[in-house]
């Protein structure tokens, strides 16, 4: 350490457990230290067995510069004591497994911790075991799968899986869930072929997105015909199908009698393709569209309660943050925009995260943490973000071609699928969001 270098007073606080707590006295530290140096100091103070990386927060922002630059940028007095909160850093994701698929992987879903669902352009959806082997193939669609939603908790024996497809329909599947203990399932990989239980018809063009409500009774879907349709999962209206629907079913060439469901509500306010939907609570739905707007819908009254307009076509949307008040949108440009729903009518997002170099294909808030985001882009990368920092936490060169979809799975895994026909799992150290 340079003797002539300037030193500043730093005090560390944390909300981590007592085993990771250091005494609350001020340390005199050289100004050239950055996150890595501070993390080393915490490690030496704690005298841990193995090194654990820490991240440091000042004033609600992650430190990504040296202490000197921090002092300069925040206009702090060099004599004041800097209070830094440290949290466990998110480690770089490492490739766990890579599964080749037959075609582009267009949709993944990791809601259920016991299995991962993926949809592909070869019109099949697949259920994957946690070890990365294919459990079952959902066959039935006649065109590419665009989106997958899961209804039903992991406690149920069977999961309700809804897939949307370019063939203008949605299908409901009952997929047997596998808990963690029974990883070695009697079912042989890829040998089981499931067929759909119900088919949702009514869209006039490709269905682009699907979302199920938290209570698992309804699903909504958005389509290229610029409508949002709401469907009931357990509809008992099989008997009162009209003749036309029967006709259609015959034309569809479905040999087994599949229950056909029609939508009970249709929202037509969007003027262009509805590209993304999210149903964070039973009361309302969020939708994003190519007409540059994203909207909030009240389910009970079917009223469009909020409209916010962006300058670009939107392709993906995710609701999260503290109290699920923030909306992250990605679209036809490399910027991830985060909007505050409490400020309707604003044109400028509260946060613009720029690091991708091409269109953002999907974005997902972490299911528990209100600060963490996951995005995938056509530039072939998957990025993890902490909204307390303008630079991404981690960047993974996930695919050789466009990354079309990504999702969190369990606490320590990120799944992604891309145009290089690969389905990949990445492991990372779990996020401590407290």
């Amino acid at each position: 350490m340079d003797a002539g270098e300037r030193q500043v007073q730093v005090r560390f606080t944390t909300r981590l457990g007592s085993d990771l707590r250091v005494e609350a006295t001020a340390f005199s530290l050289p100004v050239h230290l950055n996150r890595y140096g501070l993390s080393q100091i915490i490690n030496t103070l704690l005298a841990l067995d193995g090194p654990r990386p820490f991240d440091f927060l000042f004033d609600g922002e992650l430190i990504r510069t040296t202490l000197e630059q921090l002092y300069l940028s925040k206009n702090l007095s060099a004599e004041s004591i800097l209070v830094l909160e440290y949290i466990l850093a998110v480690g770089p994701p490492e490739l766990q497994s890579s599964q080749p698929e037959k075609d582009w992987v267009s949709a993944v879903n990791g809601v259920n911790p016991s299995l991962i669902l993926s949809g592909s352009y070869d019109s099949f959806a697949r259920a994957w075991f946690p070890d990365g082997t294919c459990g079952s193939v959902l066959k039935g669609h006649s065109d590419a799968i665009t989106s997958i939603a899961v209804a039903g908790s992991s406690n149920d024996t069977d999961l309700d899986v809804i897939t949307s497809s370019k063939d203008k329909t949605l299908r409901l599947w009952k997929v047997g869930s596998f808990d963690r203990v029974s990883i070695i399932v009697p079912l042989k990989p890829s040998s089981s072929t499931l067929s759909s239980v119900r088919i949702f018809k009514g869209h006039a063009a490709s269905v682009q997105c699907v979302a199920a409500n938290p209570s698992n009774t309804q699903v909504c879907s958005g389509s290229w015909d610029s409508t949002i349709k709401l469907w009931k999962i357990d509809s008992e209206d099989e008997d009162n199908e009209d003749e036309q629907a029967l006709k259609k079913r015959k034309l569809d060439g479905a040999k087994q009698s599949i229950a056909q469901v029609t939508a009970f509500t249709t929202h037509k306010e969007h003027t262009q393709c509805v590209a993304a939907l999210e149903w964070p609570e039973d009361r309302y739905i969020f939708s994003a569209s190519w007409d540059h707007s994203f909207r909030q819908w009240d389910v009970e009254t079917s009223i469009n309660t909020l409209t916010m307009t962006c300058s670009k076509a939107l392709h993906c949307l995710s609701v999260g943050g503290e109290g699920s008040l923030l909306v992250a949108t990605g679209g036809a440009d490399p910027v991830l925009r985060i909007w505050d729903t409490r400020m309707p009518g604003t044109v400028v997002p509260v946060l613009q995260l720029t690091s991708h170099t091409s269109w953002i294909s999907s974005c997902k808030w972490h299911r528990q943490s209100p600060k963490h985001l996951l995005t995938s882009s056509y530039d072939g990368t998957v990025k993890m973000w902490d909204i307390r920092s303008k630079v991404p936490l981690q960047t993974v060169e996930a695919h050789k071609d466009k990354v079309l979809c990504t999702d969190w799975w369990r606490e320590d895994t990120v799944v992604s699928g891309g145009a290089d026909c690969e389905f990949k799992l990445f492991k990372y150290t779990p996020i401590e969001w407290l």
Partner: protein
Amino acid sequence: MAASDDDALQVLSGDDQDDGAYSSDFEEEEADSGEEEADLDEEEGDFDDEDEEDEDSDEEDGAADGNVEANDSANHEEIREALLDYIGNGNAGADGDEESDDREAADESDSSEDEAPPRNTVGEIPLEFYKDEEHIGYDRAGRKLKKQARKDQLDSFLDRSDDPKDWHKVYDEYNDEYVELTKEEMGMISRIRQGKLPHAEVDAYQPYVDWFDWDGKGHPLSNAPEPKRRFIPSKWEAKKVVKLVRALRKGWIKLDKPKEKPRFYLMWGDDLKVNEKTANGLAYIPAPKAKLPGHEESYNPPVEYIPSEEEINSYQLMYEEDRPKFIPKKFDSLRHVPAYAEFIKEIFERCLDLYLCPRTRKKRLNIDPDSLLPKLPKPKDLQPYPTTCFLEYKGHTGAVSSISADPTGEWLLSGSRDGTVRVWEVQTGRCKKVWDMGGSVFCVAWNPNPALPVVAIAVSNDVVLLDPEVGDEEVQLNIAKLLAVQPSTSEPTENTPLIGWKRHDKLRGIQLSHQQNVVRVSWHNKGDYFVSVSPDGNNRAVLVHQLSKQQSQNPFRKHHGRVADVLFHPARPFMFVATKMHVRVYNLAKQELSKKLITGLQEISSMALHSGGDNLILGSKGAKLCWFDMDLSVKPYKTIKNHKEDINAVAFHKSYPLFASCSDDLSTHVFHGMVYSDLMQNPLIVPLKILHGHQKGERSPSGSSMLQSYPATSPGVSDIKFHPTQPWLFTAGADSVIKLFCN
């Protein structure tokens, strides 16, 4: 004064006698005295009877015997005496020596002579005042001066006869006495009577003595006497003045008002702008100001100005013109600075410049170049418009010749020279469908009616209608019906149909076989009619087909030239037919020519219509772009030469005010083209962005080994289309890649 002169002369004459040498000053003095001597001689001649004076002068002459100069000085003495006499005081001049001794005394005597005693002290008053008095005035003591008794005639006669000198006497009224005139006074009177000068000693006509030695002096001035005209006012000038005065009085000449100086002026005005004309018509052109020398020109420049070895070496690699003229160099002192090496060369070049440069005055227009540019809004304010390429559609193996987007914006259709037609998913760039057409594809067109997704493809001699399978079940049923060849239309043989509608050999679709290459297909906005263009088809170059009835018709009997492109008006029954140099607008309802647009272009290559239908853009082989406002004129509203090479395609956006052109020079130019609903307002055209990115493709030779002559492929960007709903632009290149440019 006279006395002092004499004194000086006497001293001089004494000196002269001793030395016998004269300075030029003295000579002049002598000249004066000589003149006076001559006067004296004459005087002597006139007054013979003045004895006393003569005797005096004789005595003086005798004293200075045998010496000319001495004589001269003696003559001076006589002159002095003559002058004194003239004043009228003979006694005072009696002793000259005494006076010359004491100058003060002489002065005093002079003044006393002037004030010499008139007896009477009344002063100069008219003597009539004393006419009736017994006295004539007062003497100095104040006593009355008694009038003397007047002599009567007899007494005066007796006096005259008694005194022979009585006629010399004159009565002095003032002093009331008789004064006897002296001999000199008598002479003076007689000379006046004779018309001569009163003083005998003044010679008015004495000979001119040129005392200056002119020889060899070369005097610069003329010594001719001043002419008379120098001293009298000019007659002609007087006439001129009279003339001018008259003209002024009559108002023929108007005097200029004095120029008012501006109250405020630019104190530190830029003298470079002084460009006022002078009287002879020449404008003052200030010399260009040379740059002031900086630190680098110093003989001892700071280190940072001195180039390093590498820098000097790098100069050698530069072009001669780009090399720095002067390389700073350090010297120990100013003495060590050598002569400027380029001096002779520069002077020589300067001379060459002066000799060779044309001596013409160039009229410089003092116009701000920015003011000549039209006031256009900034491109930043006209967003959104396509700027960046984020997505590429790769899969074709040959040059992509034509693209077309479906009306919803979900799909993109492309046809290529590799014989395939592909359907792409716009959002992801995935190829949904590939059709192998078995021939070079010239043009593809997606039906603009969203309810009827059918594509028309121009493949060599055929137009093929295919189903892209993107509609829902109902639509698919419709299309299946439409694309099933109806036997009723092909069977009847009352007269051979123009074009046979046949089932396509391999694909599910309809094939319309033409006789020549079909290079363009374009749909009517309603999606029922479409038109095919085969330029070599002579009178069958343009055929209109109806999808619902599966019929074809030939609306034109004859074409005025080779047809390049045909378009339908989006709303009204008009058809635009572009031939090589003109665009004809036909009214299909009335079946007549409604307008003929004169383009002035070399060869029209492509055409695009604004969604309003009143504005048309044309791209040409001469790299020119024409905008027609058909409400305005049949001539182009604006012609833009923006590209370096032939324009291949032009396109309008359906909803955004955007249009674009693409060219063989691998660039795509995007413009803002705002059409106002107000008819009085002209369209606003603003260039926005030049998009690059395509690679040079190979130009396939036209009419190669194949029997049919194929139109040549362009090596650059072959086609562009806007996305129907977003401000995005698709460009298709000869490098077999389709690019999507987004805002």
